[in-house]
C-alpha cells in the first residue's frame, strides 16, 4: 500500500515546522512512499533544498504552499509586538499545490503576493492562475475560511465561500485530516486568533459529508509538522514562540502527537475511522485514498524541466548591451509572465555573446595598460583558451553582465576590485573586472573556471563600503526589478537563542534566562551538552552541577530540538542575484527593508537555480583609498590611478620592509609586521606569498620557516625534480598556492589543468585520498617520474593540498595591500586622511594619529572654520598635515556638522552660535577641544594677557545659551535684543596641559595636542624604560621594562589550547608587541584587560635582523606606578629619586591582589579573538 503526504510543513515554515527537509524525505523513503509534498507556510524558503534532498533520495518531490487568507474584514496580518517581534494572528489558510513549470511559477507569484499584500484571496488566486496559465490544486481543509465557517455551524456561509474558490480556476479538493483528537466543537463567534483547530475523526467525517453534498472530491492528509512523535514537543515551543506567549493548553495547537509523517498503514487506519464515523462504505474510502495518490503523482515536480535546475539564467544579451535604465515595479506578484526562451534562442544568443566578448577583449588587449611580459603568441593562446572554455559553457553573457556591473560602479566613481579566484582570469582583467594581470603573476584560469564544472563561477567584487548600497541601486536601475533581487539568508537557532526561546516558552524569569544564555559561547544548539561538560567555566558552575545530576535533561533536549531551525529570514549582507526576465517566475520576492526586493532563496539555492550571483562586499579600505586619492587630487592636483601603478616601486617596498605598515591593508597586525620583518618582501609576488603564508594552516604546519630559510639562502631550496623547478621557484621550493598544486599534478601526471583542479578539490576530502592516490602513482610513473619523486610529491600534496591558498585570491588581496603601502609612502597625509575617515583597520584612531606623527604628518585640531565632515589634508607650517573633522567630536550630530560646514567661516563664537544650529553642549565641547582657538586668537600653550582663554569662552557660551532661551520671549514682545558682547578676558586661567589632554581623550577619544605619555617622560627616564625605537638595540634574552598606551589585545586560538594574550602598546616612539603566556596571565590579566596605561616587564627574544619579540613577565597600571613614585619622591627633584625607585620596586614585587586598575570611559583600544600569530 502506498500513500503520498500532500500537506507537510518543514522547518522553513518559520517557527512552525520542526524538521529539516532532508529528515522529512528520509522518513518518506523509509516508509516507502513514492512521493512527498512540502507545503511550507508563506514562502518557498526551503523548496529548493527539499527538491534536492528528494531527488537525491529517489523520492518524487511535490511543491506547495500553505497560505494565509487576507481577512478582508479586518485586513489584519501579523503585527509587530515587543520591539518589532511579530505575533502570529492565526489567519485562515488554504493549501495550494503547483503542477509543472507554470504551477511553480504560480507558487512563486502566490508567495510574492503573500509578502506584498499580506495574504491571498480567491480573486488573487484567480489573477495568478490567469497570468501564469497554471494548473493548481487547492486543498480546502478545516483551517480554511470554508472549514472554519463550517466548523462554527455556518453552513450556508461555508458553501458560499466554497463557491468563490471554485470560481478561481483552481482544482478544488476537500482536505480530510484526523489526528484522532477528542471532538471539541468550536463556538460560532470564535475569531481568527482564538480559533482552535479540531482534528478529530468526527470533525473530519462531518466535513467529508459537507464536501460530498457540495460535490467536491476529498483527499486525505495528515497536516504534518514533525517527522516523528518524539519531535512533537518542539512544535509546542515553536507555537509559544510564534505567539509570544508561554507554553500552555491555550498556546499549543496539538492535543496529541499524531500529526507526524505516518506510514501508509497508519493513514489507512485513520481513513477507516473517518469513513466508519461518517457512515461511508469502503468504496468511498478507497476513492479518497485514490484521489490523494493520483493528485500527488500528477503534481510531481521535474527539477530540470519545471524549475530549470541545471540551466543558467543570466540577463538577455540585448538587455546587457542596451545602456538605458530598465523599469522598476512596485509589485512582483501580478507582473506578466515572462516569455519562455527555448534552447534554440538561448543558443543563438550565446553565439552572439561570444562574439561581443571576443571583440571587447581584442579591442583592449593591445593597449599598453594590458602589456605583459609574455610573447604575443602566448598571450593570444591564453585568451583563446579562456574564450573557448567560456563559449563551451555558454557563459559569455555572464562575463558581460559582471563587466557591466563593474562599469556601472566605476561610472559613479566608486572603486571596485575583484576578489577571489576571478583574478585568475585574463578575460576578467581585459574586461576591467580585475585590475591584476594574471599573466604577470602565474595565475591560471582553471582555478576559477573549469570546463569540467558547469555551474557559474563566483566573482566577488570589493567596493567602497560606504557606497555599497549605491551599487545595488545602480544595478536595480540598470536591470530592473524583473531581473534583480537580493539573496536571502536564514537566521537559524544557535545555543543562545534556543535557550532564550525555550526559557521564555517555559516561563522562566527573564533575568535568569539572560544569565544562562550569556554563559554559553556562540556554539550550535546541538552542542549544548558537550559545552556544559567541556567548558571549564560552565562545568564548574551551578548549571554544570545541575547538568551532571541530570536535572537539566528536559531543558537541554528542548534546546537541542531547536538546533538550526530557521528563526528569521534576513537579507544576505552582500549577495545580489541577476537573472533574465524569468526572475519573478522562478523565485518569490519580498521587501527586504532596503530598496531592493529579496528572493526567498539563499546563496546555495541561487546557485542551484542557475541565477547569476554577485557578492558585492563593502570594504572600508577601498573607501579609505578612494578618499586619499580625492584628497591628492584636491591638494596636489595629481590624478592617481591606483589600479595602474607600477608594481615595482622601490620606495614602497622599503616602507613595507621597515615594518612601519600600520594602516596598510592585510599587513598591519603585530603578527604580520613580524612576518614582514623576517621576510622583507621586495616584489609584488613576495606580497602575494606573504599574505598566503600568514594563515592558520601554513602557520600551524610551520611552512614559514623552511620557506624563509630557502628564501634567504640559509638552506638550499628543494625542488625534488628538475621538471618542477619552474613551478616551485617562486616560493623557493615550498608549495604555497593552489595554483602550484594544480600545476604539480598536471606536470607529474600529464593531465590537463582542469583535471588537475578536480584532483586538488578531492585532496580536501580525506576519504577520497585513496582513490586519488590509486590514479596518481601509475600516471606519474607512466609520465617518466621515479617512484621516489612521485612518493615525495604525494606526501606534499596530501599534507599541504588542503592548506594551500588560492594565489589569485591572495593576488587580489595583495593589490590593495600594495596600493595602500604606496599611498603611505608617497602621499602620507592623504593616506592618513583616508584611513582615519573610514577606519578600516584593527587599531584605534589614536594610534594611527601617533603613526602619522612618526611620518612627519602634523595634526591640526578641530577648527570651526577649517574642519569638515572628513579628515582632510591641509598645509600646516609648510608641511602637508591632517585636519581633524567636526564629526570626531563626541555627541555631535550629522545635522550639526552640516550646519557648521554650510555657514562657515565664522568671525566669532557669537557668529557661530547665531548662524549655525548647534546645541549648547556641542558649542562647549568645541570650545574645550580648541575649535574656536583660531577664531579668538587663543593659544593655550602660550596664553597672553588681555586675551580671552578657553575658560572665558566656556563662560561666554553659557551666556549665549541664556540669551537664546530669553530670546523667544523677547521676540514675542517685539523687542529687539542684542547678543551678549564678544567674549573678553576675565582673568580666568587657561586650561593646563593635563586638562586639555583629558578633554581630548573624553571628547575625541584620542590625544591630539600631545601624546598621553608626554607627562610621564621624566618618570620613564628615571625608571630606565626601553622605548620602542630603542628596542632593536637590546640584546637577546634581557629583562626590560616598556610602557605604553594599550592599543589592542588579541587572544588567538592556539593549537595547544593554551591561551596567549598578545598586547600591543604605543609608547609615542612606535608600537610594541608583547606576548603573555599562561603562567603570567592569572596574576596580571586584570591589569592587562582593564588598565589603559601600562608598565610592562618582559624578556626579549631576537627573531631576525629586524625582529625582536617580548615575552611579558609582569604588567602594572602606569598611573598607579606614578602615584606610588610621587608619594615618596617628586619627579622634578633628583634627591628623592632613589626612594621613589625603591617604592616602585616594592610595588612591582608585591602580589597583585590589592591593585585596582584605573578605568577609562571611552574606548581607546581594540579587543578581539584575533587571528593566529
Amino acid at each position, binding site marked *: 500500500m502506498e500513500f503520498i503526504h500532500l500537506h507537510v510543513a518543514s522547518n522553513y515554515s518559520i517557527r512552525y515546522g520542526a524538521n529539516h527537509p532532508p529528515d522529512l524525505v528520509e522518513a518518506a523513503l523509509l516508509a516507502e512512499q513514492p512521493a512527498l509534498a512540502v507545503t511550507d507556510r508563506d514562502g518557498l524558503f526551503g523548496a529548493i533544498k527539499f527538491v534536492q534532498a528528494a531527488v537525491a533520495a529517489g523520492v518524487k518531490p511535490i511543491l506547495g504552499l500553505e497560505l494565509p487568507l487576507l481577512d478582508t474584514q479586518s485586513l489584519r496580518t501579523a503585527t509587530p509586538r515587543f520591539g518589532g517581534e511579530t505575533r502570529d494572528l492565526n489567519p485562515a489558510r488554504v493549501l495550494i499545490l503547483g503542477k509543472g513549470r507554470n504551477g511553480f511559477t504560480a507558487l512563486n507569484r502566490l508567495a510574492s503576493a503573500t509578502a506584498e499584500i499580506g495574504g491571498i484571496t480567491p480573486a488573487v488566486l484567480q489573477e495568478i492562475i490567469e497570468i501564469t496559465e497554471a494548473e493548481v490544486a487547492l486543498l480546502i481543509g478545516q483551517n480554511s475560511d470554508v472549514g472554519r465557517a463550517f466548523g462554527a455551524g455556518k453552513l450556508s456561509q461555508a458553501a458560499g465561500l466554497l463557491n468563490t474558490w471554485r470560481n478561481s480556476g483552481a482544482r478544488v479538493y476537500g482536505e480530510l485530516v484526523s489526528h484522532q483528537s477528542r471532538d471539541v466543537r468550536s463556538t460560532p463567534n470564535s475569531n481568527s486568533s482564538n480559533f482552535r483547530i479540531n482534528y478529530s475523526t468526527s470533525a473530519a467525517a462531518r466535513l467529508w459529508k459537507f464536501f460530498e453534498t457540495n460535490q467536491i472530491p476529498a483527499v486525505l492528509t495528515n497536516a504534518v509538522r514533525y517527522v516523528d512523535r518524539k519531535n512533537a*514537543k518542539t512544535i509546542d515551543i515553536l507555537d509559544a514562540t510564534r505567539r509570544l506567549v508561554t507554553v500552555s493548553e491555550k498556546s499549543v495547537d496539538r492535543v496529541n502527537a499524531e500529526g507526524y509523517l505516518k506510514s501508509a498503514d497508519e493513514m489507512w487506519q485513520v481513513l477507516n*475511522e473517518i469513513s466508519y464515523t461518517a457512515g461511508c462504505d469502503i468504496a468511498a474510502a478507497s476513492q479518497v485514498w485514490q484521489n490523494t495518490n493520483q493528485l500527488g503523482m500528477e503534481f510531481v515536480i521535474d527539477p530540470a524541466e519545471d524549475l530549470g535546475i541545471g540551466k543558467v539564467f543570466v540577463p538577455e544579451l540585448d538587455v546587457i548591451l542596451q545602456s538605458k535604465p530598465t523599469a522598476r515595479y512596485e509589485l512582483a506578484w501580478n507582473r506578466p509572465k515572462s516569455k519562455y526562451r527555448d534552447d534554440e534562442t538561448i543558443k543563438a544568443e550565446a553565439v552572439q555573446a561570444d562574439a561581443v566578448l571576443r571583440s571587447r577583449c581584442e579591442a583592449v588587449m593591445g593597449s599598453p595598460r594590458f602589456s605583459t611580459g609574455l610573447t604575443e603568441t602566448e598571450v593570444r593562446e591564453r585568451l583563446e583558451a579562456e574564450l573557448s572554455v567560456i563559449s563551451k559553457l555558454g557563459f559569455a553573457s555572464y562575463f558581460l553582465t559582471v563587466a557591466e556591473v563593474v562599469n556601472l560602479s566605476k561610472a559613479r566613481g566608486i572603486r571596485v576590485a575583484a576578489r577571489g579566484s576571478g583574478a585568475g582570469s585574463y578575460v576578467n582583467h581585459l574586461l576591467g573586472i580585475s585590475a591584476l594581470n594574471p599573466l604577470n603573476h602565474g595565475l591560471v584560469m582553471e582555478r576559477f573556471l573549469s570546463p569540467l564544472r558547469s555551474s557559474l563561477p563566483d566573482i566577488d567584487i570589493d567596493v567602497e563600503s560606504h557606497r555599497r548600497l549605491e551599487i545595488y541601486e545602480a544595478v536595480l536601475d540598470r536591470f530592473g526589478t524583473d531581473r534583480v533581487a537580493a539573496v536571502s539568508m536564514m537566521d537559524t537557532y544557535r545555543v543562545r537563542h534556543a535557550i532564550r526561546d525555550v526559557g521564555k516558552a517555559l516561563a522562566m524569569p527573564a533575568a535568569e534566562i539572560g544569565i544562562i544564555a550569556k554563559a554559553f559561547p556562540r556554539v550550535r544548539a546541538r552542542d549544548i551538552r558537550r559545552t556544559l561538560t567541556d567548558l571549564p567555566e560552565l562545568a564548574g558552575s551551578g548549571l554544570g552541577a545541575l547538568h551532571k545530576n541530570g536535572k537539566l535533561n528536559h531543558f537541554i533536549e528542548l534546546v537541542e530540538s531547536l538546533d538550526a531551525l530557521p528563526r528569521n529570514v534576513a537579507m544576505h549582507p552582500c549577495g545580489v542575484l541577476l537573472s533574465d526576465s524569468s526572475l519573478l517566475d522562478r523565485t518569490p520576492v519580498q521587501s527586504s527593508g532596503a530598496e531592493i526586493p529579496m528572493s526567498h532563496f539563499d546563496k546555495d539555492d541561487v546557485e542551484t537555480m542557475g541565477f547569476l550571483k554577485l557578492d558585492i562586499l563593502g570594504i572600508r579600505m577601498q573607501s579609505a583609498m578612494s578618499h586619499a586619492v580625492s584628497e591628492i587630487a584636491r591638494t596636489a592636483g595629481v590624478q592617481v590611478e591606483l589600479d595602474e601603478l607600477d608594481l615595482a616601486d622601490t620606495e614602497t617596498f622599503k616602507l613595507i620592509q621597515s615594518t612601519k605598515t600600520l594602516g596598510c591593508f592585510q599587513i598591519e597586525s603585530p603578527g604580520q609586521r613580524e612576518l614582514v620583518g623576517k621576510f622583507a618582501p621586495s616584489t609584488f609576488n613576495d606580497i602575494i606569498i606573504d599574505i598566503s603564508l600568514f594563515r592558520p594552516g601554513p602557520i600551524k604546519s610551520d611552512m614559514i620557516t623552511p620557506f624563509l630559510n630557502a628564501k634567504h639562502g640559509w638552506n638550499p631550496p628543494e625542488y625534488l625534480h628538475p621538471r618542477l623547478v619552474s613551478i616551485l621557484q617562486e616560493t623557493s621550493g615550498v608549495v604555497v598556492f593552489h595554483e602550484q598544486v594544480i600545476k604539480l599534478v598536471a606536470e607529474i601526471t600529464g593531465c590537463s589543468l582542469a583535471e588537475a583542479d578536480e584532483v586538488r578539490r578531492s585532496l580536501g576530502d580525506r576519504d577520497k585520498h585513496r582513490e586519488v592516490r590509486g590514479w596518481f602513482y601509475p600516471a606519474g610513473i607512466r609520465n617518466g617520474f621515479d617512484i621516489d619523486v612521485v612518493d615525495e610529491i604525494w606526501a606534499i600534496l596530501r599534507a599541504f593540498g588542503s592548506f594551500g591558498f588560492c594565489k589569485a585570491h591572495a593576488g587580489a588581496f595583495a593589490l590593495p595591500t600594495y596600493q595602500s603601502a604606496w599611498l603611505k609612502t608617497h602621499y602620507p597625509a592623504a593616506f592618513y586622511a583616508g584611513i582615519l575617515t573610514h577606519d578600516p583597520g584593527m587599531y584605534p584612531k589614536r594610534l594611527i594619529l601617533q603613526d602619522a606623527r612618526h611620518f612627519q604628518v602634523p595634526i591640526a585640531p578641530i577648527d570651526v572654520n577649517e574642519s569638515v565632515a572628513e579628515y582632510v589634508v591641509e598645509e600646516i607650517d609648510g608641511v602637508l598635515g591632517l585636519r581633524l573633522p567636526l564629526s570626531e567630536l563626541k555627541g555631535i550630530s550629522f545635522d550639526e556638522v552640516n550646519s557648521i560646514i554650510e555657514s562657515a567661516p565664522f568671525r566669532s563664537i557669537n557668529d557661530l552660535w547665531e548662524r549655525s544650529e548647534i546645541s549648547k553642549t556641542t558649542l562647549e565641547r568645541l570650545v574645550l577641544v580648541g575649535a574656536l582657538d583660531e577664531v579668538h586668537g587663543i593659544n593655550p600653550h602660550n596664553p597672553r594677557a588681555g586675551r580671552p582663554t578657553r575658560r572665558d569662552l566656556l563662560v561666554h557660551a553659557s551666556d549665549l545659551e541664556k540669551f537664546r532661551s530669553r530670546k523667544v520671549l523677547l521676540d514675542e514682545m517685539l523687542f529687539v535684543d542684542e547678543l551678549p558682547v564678544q567674549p573678553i578676558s576675565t582673568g580666568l586661567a587657561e586650561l593646563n596641559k593635563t586638562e586639555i589632554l583629558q578633554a581630548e581623550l573624553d571628547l575625541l577619544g584620542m590625544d591630539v595636542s600631545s601624546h598621553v605619555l608626554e607627562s610621564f617622560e621624566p618618570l620613564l627616564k628615571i625608571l630606565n624604560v626601553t622605548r620602542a625605537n630603542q628596542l632593536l638595540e637590546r640584546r637577546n634574552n634581557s629583562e626590560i621594562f616598556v610602557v605604553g598606551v594599550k592599543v589592542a589585545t588579541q587572544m588567538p586560538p592556539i593549537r595547544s589550547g593554551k591561551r596567549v594574550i598578545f598586547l600591543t602598546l604605543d609608547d609615542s616612539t612606535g608600537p610594541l608587541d608583547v606576548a603573555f603566556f599562561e603562567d603570567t596571565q592569572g596574576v596580571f590579566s586584570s591589569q592587562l584587560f582593564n588598565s589603559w596605561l601600562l608598565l610592562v616587564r618582559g624578556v626579549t627574544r631576537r627573531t631576525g635582523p629586524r625582529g625582536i619579540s617580548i615575552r611579558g613577565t609582569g604588567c602594572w597600571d602606569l598611573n598607579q606606578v606614578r602615584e606610588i613614585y610621587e608619594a615618596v619622591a617628586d619627579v622634578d627633584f633628583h634627591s628623592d629619586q632613589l626612594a621613589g625607585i625603591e617604592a616602585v620596586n616594592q610595588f612591582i614585587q608585591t602580589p597583585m591582589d590589592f591593585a585596582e586598575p584605573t578605568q577609562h570611559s571611552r574606548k581607546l583600544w581594540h579587543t578581539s579573538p584575533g587571528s593566529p600569530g
Partner: protein
Amino acid sequence: MSKRPIAIEIDVQSEAGIPKSFNWKNRWYSVQQVLMFWVEVGPWWKSTTEFADSDGAEITWRIWRIEAKSESGAVIADIAFRDSLTSSSAYPWRLIRVFD
C-alpha cells in the same frame, strides 16, 4: 450523569488493540459498543514525570469511551491505553472515567 475521574490500573482483554472486556472492582464488564475514540498526551510542561517516561519521552494515551455491561448493570466508561515509545508497562490499561 456524573463524571468520576478515577485513573486506576485495570485488567483488560483486547482484540487488535480494541478493548473487549475489563475488570473493575472484581467484576468483569464486556464492551458492547465503542462510542468514541481519541488520542491524548498530557501537558508535559506542567510535570516532567507525570506525562513522560523516565527518559523524557512523551506518553500517549489512547482512550475509548465505551458502553459496557456486567451482571449488575450497564456503565459508560473511558478506558485508556498507555502507549509509550520507549517503555512498556505491565499494566498499560487505566479506567479513567465512569458515567453512571
